[in-house]
């Protein structure tokens, strides 16, 4: 869009570096003081930075060239191990996933939230809610998400919601775990289904007794009644052959025994299903004449154990799940920076595009996003640097059994340096590797400051 390029983009609220004008009279004695005065002001900062930041960089590089004991020089072997050791390779692979997925998703969400909240009066309240997790520790966030990701759908909210959605689309089995008595006519026919040994005869009601039905599955169920014999039809009853408090005869419908409604009953002849129906609220069912002489089968779908949701913190999903927790914490950061950038976008440009007939999506895609590009870049880079060093969240959320699957470089560095598999040579090599990964940003920052100084 020509109008967009004619106007310079708004200045980004640089999170990486915000240059300020240099003091006037730069380079010369700003206030005409003696250098030793400056030295006194600088000494504490330079001493701390030198001893605890600069010296460690040098020491890490040096240490990374030595073996675990710290005495044997091994050259680049530790770096080689970083790229060959199976556990560290998992960490590398996960770090790549982290760096690609987490910043982009958090930034995309931040952009959507920032744009949408602009038009809503209570946008500030929304922003506060989304931004709030930034103020809490990764430890607390980790504990929060350990609770969210609990496997048991009765306890973990993620699985409670997931199972709810799943069961809405795929009806759960009516009587999970139910089965016949071992002595009756009904026997297991493989794959969790049960079938009668004898063939059903039209006009003579069949009894299909089951036990081990969970009490909550028959709460409110009607009492079972014997099916009537209907000439030309196969009839029968499926019920819970168990009287509360004992008594009753096995295989016989006793007083107060509950009907099992909604059970699928199939008639099978020569391995082929010829008819199928489900039981009524009183437990009875009726199959057409074609079922005469067939064996009756109760398919496994009646008894499948309840869907238990997703194993969020299992080996295969643990990294995406933890990334979810990270996005919960940091989408607010992206949102706030992008909202500030958005405030600097000239309204006239958006209006002009709308007057030209662009719809909201086109305005967003063709005007807003290009104008925000510098801000988006800053947000993504900042999040990438942040994600490279991710440690606490992984360490807290991943259970011991999948900690290795969730491994990341910073965690491996901790384990190699102080944890389970100590080799400080490897630990130092990982540290130097991390430092190398963020170095390009240092160079960009310094260039930018130089440029702003010269202006």
């Amino acid at each position, binding site marked *: 869009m020509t109008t967009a390029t004619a106007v310079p983009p708004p200045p980004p609220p640089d999170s990486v570096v915000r240059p300020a004008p240099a003091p006037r009279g730069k380079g010369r004695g700003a206030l005409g003081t003696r250098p030793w005065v400056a030295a006194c002001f600088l000494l504490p900062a330079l001493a701390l930075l030198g001893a605890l930041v600069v010296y460690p960089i040098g020491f*890490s590089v040096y240490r990374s060239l030595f073996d675990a004991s710290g005495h044997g020089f091994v050259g680049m072997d530790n770096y080689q191990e970083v790229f060959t050791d199976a556990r560290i390779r998992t960490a590398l692979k996960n770090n790549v996933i982290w760096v690609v997925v987490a910043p982009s998703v958090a930034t995309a969400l931040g952009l959507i939230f920032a744009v949408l909240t602009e038009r809503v009066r209570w946008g500030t309240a929304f922003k506060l809610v989304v931004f709030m997790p930034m103020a809490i520790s990764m430890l607390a966030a980790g504990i929060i998400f350990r609770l969210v990701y609990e496997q048991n759908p009765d306890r973990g909210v993620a699985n409670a919601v997931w199972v709810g959605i799943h069961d809405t689309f795929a009806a759960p089995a009516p009587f999970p775990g139910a089965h016949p008595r071992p002595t009756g006519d009904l026997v297991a026919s493989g794959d969790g289904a049960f079938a009668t040994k004898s063939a059903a005869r039209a006009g003579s009601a069949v009894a299909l007794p089951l036990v081990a039905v969970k009490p909550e599955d028959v709460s409110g169920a009607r009492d079972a009644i014997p099916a009537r014999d209907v000439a030309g039809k196969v009839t029968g009853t499926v019920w819970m052959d168990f009287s509360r408090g004992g008594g009753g005869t096995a295989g016989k419908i006793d007083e107060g025994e509950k009907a099992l409604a909604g059970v699928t009953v199939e008639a099978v002849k020569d391995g082929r299903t010829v008819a199928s129906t489900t039981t009524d609220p009183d437990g009875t069912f009726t199959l057409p004449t074609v079922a005469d002489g067939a064996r009756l089968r109760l398919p496994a779908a009646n008894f499948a154990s309840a869907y238990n949701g997703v194993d969020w913190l299992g080996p295969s999903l643990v990294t995406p799940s933890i990334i979810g927790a990270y996005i919960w914490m940091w989408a607010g950061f992206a949102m706030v920076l992008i909202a500030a950038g958005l405030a600097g976008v000239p309204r006239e440009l958006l209006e002009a595009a709308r007057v030209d007939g662009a719809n909201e999506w086109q305005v967003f895609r063709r005007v807003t996003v290009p104008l925000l590009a510098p801000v988006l870049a800053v947000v993504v880079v900042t999040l990438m640097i942040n994600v490279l060093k991710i440690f606490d969240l992984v360490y807290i959320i991943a259970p011991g059994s999948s900690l290795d699957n969730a491994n990341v470089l910073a965690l491996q560095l901790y384990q190699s340096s102080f944890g389970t598999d100590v080799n400080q040579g490897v630990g130092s090599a990982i540290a130097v590797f991390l430092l190398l990964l963020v170095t390009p940003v240092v160079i960009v920052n310094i260039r930018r400051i130089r440029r702003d100084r010269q202006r």
Partner: protein
Amino acid sequence: MSLQDTVVRGERSLPARLAARLGAGATRGFLVVVGLFWLMPTVGLLLSSLRDKSDIAASGWWQVFAHPSQLTTESYRTLFANDKVTHSLLTTALITVPATVLVILVGALAGYAFAWLDFPGRDWWFMVVVGLLVVPVQVALIPVAKLFSALGIFESTVGVVLFHTAFGLPFAVFLLRNFFAEIPRELLEAARLDGAGELRLFTRVVLPLGGPAIASLGIFQFLWVWNDMLVALIFADSGNPPITVALQQQVRQFGDNVDILASGAFLSMVVPLAVFFAFQRQFVSGVMAGAVK
């Protein structure tokens, strides 16, 4: 504008207005859902911390909406009866407050020097400090552990405070130098003419004027140090750790300790959240100025 004009415009824009209104409704609905979704994990933690251990094991926190009688402060009473936890909160405060004050003080001294004092290679030194902004703390863990061991301050509060101060300094110097640089030169020169010495100028003019930037920096560093686990895990006294480490030690038996963990985690969040809500604006401007950590 003629009457006919208005009518025509109104007719033309009716579908558009309808679409806009529908869109606005959808936007609001979407934001409400997302907002609730974002709040849910925290609410879940709070409600879990207000339930009995056996209730937590039996069912999800949302059950309290059906059974409000489950709410109890039992977990918190257990927590406060535990000396280790109360001590760990104190330790956290004893680390956070000095680390925040020190970074402000040392950072302000250096920031002032970089902004207004003259010494050889000033710009070059400032570049170095800015370059250190993104150095990951991980790089320093092993070397500083060795250094502190040699100095006898490994596993001590002093060590943790020094470490946090050092790693907070690049941001502090960067932020404060840029802010101090905008102080009008005339103001400083006037004070100088009145006979103020360098130190007096710093404490009486520069520090008070730097208020907003110092507030941002302070909030930022406070939250950073209060919430830190990694540095404390290595450098703090493991017998008297800050709250993050104390809770971390319980995480491996998550199911057994879920009551203490939920209430402890919430307790550890109270101070940062209070600071966040009280000083949102300063926090946001701190984040904007360069939250690269």
